[in-house]
């Protein structure tokens, strides 16, 4: 598998570290149900078959966090971007607009 780093171009998988789901949102610790929500946030994953937005770290390269949109069945990568540029989860973007 090769990942197209937005800074460096296409690079071998072994330069990257996988971090997982890019759309997880850290729950509010003040929430009444914070305990249950944190358990879900830390442990529960949907394990989708197909489209997945995920975080990768280009550790043996430019050290940029990247969001990749990948098909978990074929490993085809549809798009990549720097996490700070547009990789924020939809929930986070919506939160920013509201605030």
């Amino acid at each position, binding site marked *: 598998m090769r990942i197209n780093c937005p*800074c*460096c171009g296409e*690079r*071998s998988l*072994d*330069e990257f570290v996988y971090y997982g789901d890019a759309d997880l949102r850290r729950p509010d610790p003040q929430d009444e149900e914070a305990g249950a929500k944190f358990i879900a946030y830390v442990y529960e994953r949907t394990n989708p078959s197909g489209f997945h937005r995920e975080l990768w770290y280009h*550790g*043996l*390269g*430019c*050290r*940029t966090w990247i969001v990749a949109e990948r098909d978990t069945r074929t490993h085809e990568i549809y798009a990549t971007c*720097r996490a700070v540029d547009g990789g924020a989860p939809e929930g986070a973007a919506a939160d920013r607009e509201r605030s």
Partner: protein
Amino acid sequence: MVDQLITLPAFPAPSIERADQVRIVARENVQIVGITARERETESLVLAFRAVYGLDLPMKPARVEKDGLAVVWAGWHQWLLMSDVAAVPDLEQIMRADFGGYAAVVDHSDARAIVAVSGRRARDLLAKGVSIDLHPRVFTTGDAAATAISHVGMHIWQTDEKPTFELAVPRTYADSLWRWMERASAEYQNSDSLL
């Protein structure tokens, strides 16, 4: 600070010569300063740098040089600046005075070690440990990359058409890289070896 520069060489020998095929040279006495643009200050930094040094900080993996000062792209809005110790007394102090308002300025002289690899088999040698393509069609003089050699993270750039490549690795890995270079280049020790 120059007086704190490590005086012991980073590499166990000054050079490795492989007939007329590959030459590997330890580049000691290079001052290395890393600058990282502060948030929303990149444009000001680029303008200020151009005004003072007549160089455009590269926004993609590349290297530029003028009057003994070399600039290598080192990540998003990050650069490594290099000059010889003998030519410039204290690069970090100068850079901080000039650009400290726009960028974090850190001396990397004690953190990195630079080795130059040149000669007609230089690409063949590096291909044994580097996963990116260094063929002249896609990587040439002035190009740079942040990648790895033999599992060690490094910055690499090409300085001329001999070709000469320079590699900056963490100083603590310099010895390991040197041993790798010795063994990986051993097959080039005879000038008449078959291609």
